[in-house]
């Protein structure tokens, strides 16, 4: 479970261009469910995803993660881990082990193979390479991109890129998947395929958090909770348990 209490993120604080991207947001994201952050551009969805995904720290407020596994907290302490003021090193570990990220632009590294792109998040974990390589190949099999294992990613089509990006997000077997506008560069057919894959992940018990203003995503029957956002604030929550 992810718990946000009065989270605010202000950029360029005390400067003439001060800007509050997330304003006093309190929200609970249930485990194993699909939560959609819905709203227009500039509504604060991406910033909220970055805060939850340990990529940035809130200016104020608290973010707590429940039932996550890290090397620096024991199980007992772990029941609710406040990530708000953790040092960068710990945030990186949580980001690496707990979250899988799917970016709007896919953010795959050009020039290296699709397989290597999928293995990227696992390189610094210190895991045996043969193990995560096998896992990456299984994921490629699962997403039907095995034949592109050795191909540089620039040879792949949009749909294939999307699937490689999802496989990369899953290689460290994270509990939570975060996707930022994942269908922005996909046509309706590919967007539908993407939602199918999301459904599969959800059925595997993954917690999925998607920021999108695509009706194909937020109107999907798979969505458990849809959080409406505008100007950094929550405008409404539908489908909450």
């Amino acid at each position: 479970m992810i718990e946000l209490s009065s989270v605010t993120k202000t950029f360029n604080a005390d400067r003439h261009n001060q800007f509050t991207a997330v304003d006093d947001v309190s929200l609970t994201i249930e485990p194993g469910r699909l939560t959609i952050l819905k709203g227009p551009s500039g509504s604060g969805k991406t910033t909220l995803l970055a805060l939850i995904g340990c990529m940035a720290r809130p200016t104020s407020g608290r973010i707590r993660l429940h039932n996550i596994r890290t090397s620096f907290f024991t199980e007992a302490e772990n029941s609710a881990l406040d990530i708000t003021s953790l040092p960068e090193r710990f945030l990186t570990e949580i980001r690496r082990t707990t979250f899988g990220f799917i970016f709007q632009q896919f953010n795959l590294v050009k020039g290296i193979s699709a397989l290597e792109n999928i293995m990227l998040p696992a390189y610094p974990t210190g895991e045996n390479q043969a193990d995560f390589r096998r896992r990456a190949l299984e994921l490629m099999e699962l997403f039907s991109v095995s034949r592109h294992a050795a191909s540089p990613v620039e040879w792949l089509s949009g749909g294939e890129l999307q699937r490689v990006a999802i496989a990369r997000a899953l290689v460290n077997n994270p509990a939570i998947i975060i996707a930022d506008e994942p269908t922005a560069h996909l046509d309706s057919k590919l967007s539908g395929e993407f939602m199918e894959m999301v459904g599969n992940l959800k059925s595997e018990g993954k917690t999925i958090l998607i920021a999108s203003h695509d009706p194909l995503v937020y109107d999907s029957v798979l969505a458990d909770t849809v959080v409406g956002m505008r100007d950094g604030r929550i405008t409404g929550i539908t489908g909450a348990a």
Partner: protein
Amino acid sequence: MNIPLNRHSNILDFSLSSLLRRKSKNLSLLVVYTLIIFVIASLIFFVQALKREAAQLLKEAPDMVVQRMVAGRHDLIPAAYGEKISAIRGVTSVSPRLWGYYYDQVFGANYTLLVAEGKPVEPGNIMIGAGVARNQRIQASDMLTLKTSANEALLLTVQGIYPSSSELISSDLIILSAEDFQAMFNLPPGQNTDLAVTVANPREQVTVAAKIAELFPDTRPILKSEILRTYDSLFEWRGGMIVVILAVAVLSFIIFAWDKATGLSAEERKEIGILKSIGWETSDVLLLKFWEGIVISLSAFLTGVVLAYVHVFFFSAALFEHALKGWSVIYPQFRLVPVIDVYQLTVLFFLTVLPYTAATIIPAWLAATVPPDAAMRS
């Protein structure tokens, strides 16, 4: 394998494939880097080998040489000086020496003419250095014509040619008999170029030299140690030219490393952002860049040093021997004996591999300190 070792091996693996995808850029980096190391290492090997060569050959030099000075210039010394010097306590022997220079106008070359002390050649015969043989295009039992100071031709038969192992010193040498030498330069009998003095106890050499200078105020005793020092400074002077070449090479390296340091492309910056966003720590990115730098610089260092070794010791430093060896048209041709100065190579290693690796890491470190959410906004 344990986790930290796995992490290193995984990141090293990735850095290799990362280097391969910018093949042309990294290959050109490697070539330039190798070339710089090659030039510097060649110079180091070359100078060390020359110094060693000279030291080896001068082992046989006399303990002391006594020259007579007239008006501050080196002049002929009478044989009578030698008799009195040999009477000085501590002096084992005194050998009068005859030597001089001869300029061959036809071939435009300078030769060193010397009367051998140990095994003198018969009048009418000569022994020559390999450089003279090459220059004159003659071989053993051929005739060589020299012009005497009276403008008469002196016909000499080549008895033998010195082996090329001692060519650095013997290249321009012509060994002839005392009679022929005197005929060449019209020397009065009983006059020598200088005297070679042997002193049994090395500690007494300075005292003996002082006594000689006192007995014959018009003489200049030169100790072997002084000759060695002169040779050393001669090579050091040549080392001066080497310093110029070295400075150019080091400067090229600095420009090259600076270019690398400031040359992190937008794509590389973006990649670093991606790596950070998917869970790479700043230290992981630095480790990646460290391995990239080490792979390039170590390969260049090792290749450059090996090529320099082959160049200097197998091809006699063919690329710059004309600039650095010999001072007449007769260039010595000899194979240098391999000498490796570990200290200088270590200095070279620390002055090249470390700055280059640092130059690779620093811009990456600057790029890697961007917040990980930057990739989400790109």
